[in-house]
């Protein structure tokens, strides 16, 4: 009996894209359910009643939520082309940096993108500090996973797409190639990797979308 694999996602969600990338690396076939988050389907609400978000992977009727949890599930269920390192210490490091990416890097970059004035200056300073740590992790490596793309590359993959989009919209410099040469190179390598390249959502639509998302923050009155 064929396995049933379904991915609930949106056209633009960077978290969902991690799963699309992972499923492609593993060579898995699956059905896609494209969601409109302003009008969530009954299925989405049934499969993710707590967070009501995408992505959701449904495997033989059983749902898994939270993109980093889904990545580990995929890696443990299908053993070809491993995403996480085998060594427990290297695995721990990958998990540690993925958490750092979610809780610190993503937060500071989003804050810099959506704030102004002093708040923005602080967010940019925090971002610069956070990115220095990431830069160090790339020493001697092409990808975070080593020679080939792995879990941590997928976890940071949003940067390879969104940083230039945010920079274009806000006129900020988030990743300076002179200060962060390894990270800049990684962003190019990841973006242009043959497996990843064709999966990026249309750039013009992304620029339009994030411009619109930024608007309400700009209209906030600064007292």
């Amino acid at each position, binding site marked *: 009996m064929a396995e049933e694999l379904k991915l609930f996602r949106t056209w633009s969600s960077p978290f969902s894209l991690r799963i699309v990338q992972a499923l492609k690396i593993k060579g898995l076939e699956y059905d896609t359910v494209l969601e409109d988050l302003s009008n969530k389907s009954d299925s989405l609400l049934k499969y993710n*009643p*707590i967070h009501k978000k995408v992505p959701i992977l449904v*495997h033989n009727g*059983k749902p*898994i*939520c*939270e993109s980093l*949890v*889904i990545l*580990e*599930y995929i890696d*443990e*269920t299908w053993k070809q082309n491993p995403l996480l390192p085998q060594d*427990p*210490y290297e*695995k*721990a*490091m990958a*998990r*540690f940096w993925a*958490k*750092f990416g979610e809780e610190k890097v993503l937060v500071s970059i989003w804050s810099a993108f959506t704030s102004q004035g002093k708040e923005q200056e602080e967010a940019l300073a925090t971002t610069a500090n956070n990115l220095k*740590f990431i830069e160090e992790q790339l020493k001697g490596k092409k990808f975070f996973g080593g020679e080939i793309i792995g879990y941590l590359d997928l976890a940071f993959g949003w940067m390879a797409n969104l940083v230039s989009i945010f920079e274009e919209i806000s006129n900020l410099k988030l990743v300076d190639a002179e200060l962060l040469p390894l990270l800049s190179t990684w962003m190019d390598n990841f973006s242009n990797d043959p497996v990843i390249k064709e999966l990026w959502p249309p750039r013009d639509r992304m620029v339009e979308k994030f411009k619109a998302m930024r608007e309400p923050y700009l209209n906030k009155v600064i007292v």
Partner: protein
Amino acid sequence: MEEVKLFGSSYSPFSRRVEMALKLKGVEYEFIEEDLSNKSPLLLKYNPIHKKIPVLLHNGKPIAESSVIIEYIDETWEGPSILPKDPYERAMARFWVKFIDEKCSAAMWKAFASPGEEGEKAKEEAAQLLKFLEEEIKGKKFFGGENIGLVDISANFIGYWFGILQEIAGLEILTKEKYPNLCKWIDGYINDNFVKDNLPAKDKMTEAFKALAQPGFSGYKPKV
């Protein structure tokens, strides 16, 4: 001979989780009690990014973040499994730990520590979020089933710390009336022979946290 060291704090639920994991596996380790108002140079060397405890040092290599450390412990040492074996069950355990730490406990801390409107909102949020855990524990002795597992270990803040904070602040969020199943789990949890050896003494904890909830205190930020 293996060298295992844990930089931690006796009052920190995150630190205690890691100790529970080590003890479940029967790992011998040296515990270094950190003064969080005066962090040691070693702690800052081993966790320069967050400068927090707990940090596990195994043969000179440091690991930070309690959830990451616990998975490392489960993968490195023999003994009772902390995470389930089945990939789907593992995913569910990781999902619940994330929910407990990032949503539930966060709202519960705020309900205790934040003054005014922020605190009120947090109380409502915590009440809603706890309902999901109430549902999840129904019919089970522990979140891990018959024995404690990853989720039970990671829910120590809910199982023990919050009860004390609730008393200090005069809150009535987590009550038997509203959450009968969750409170039953709490009873089983804090009286479990293994778990109770890994909880700090109630009187000492009450004193420590009371000191932080003085009138005029603008809000408690977890020191860890």
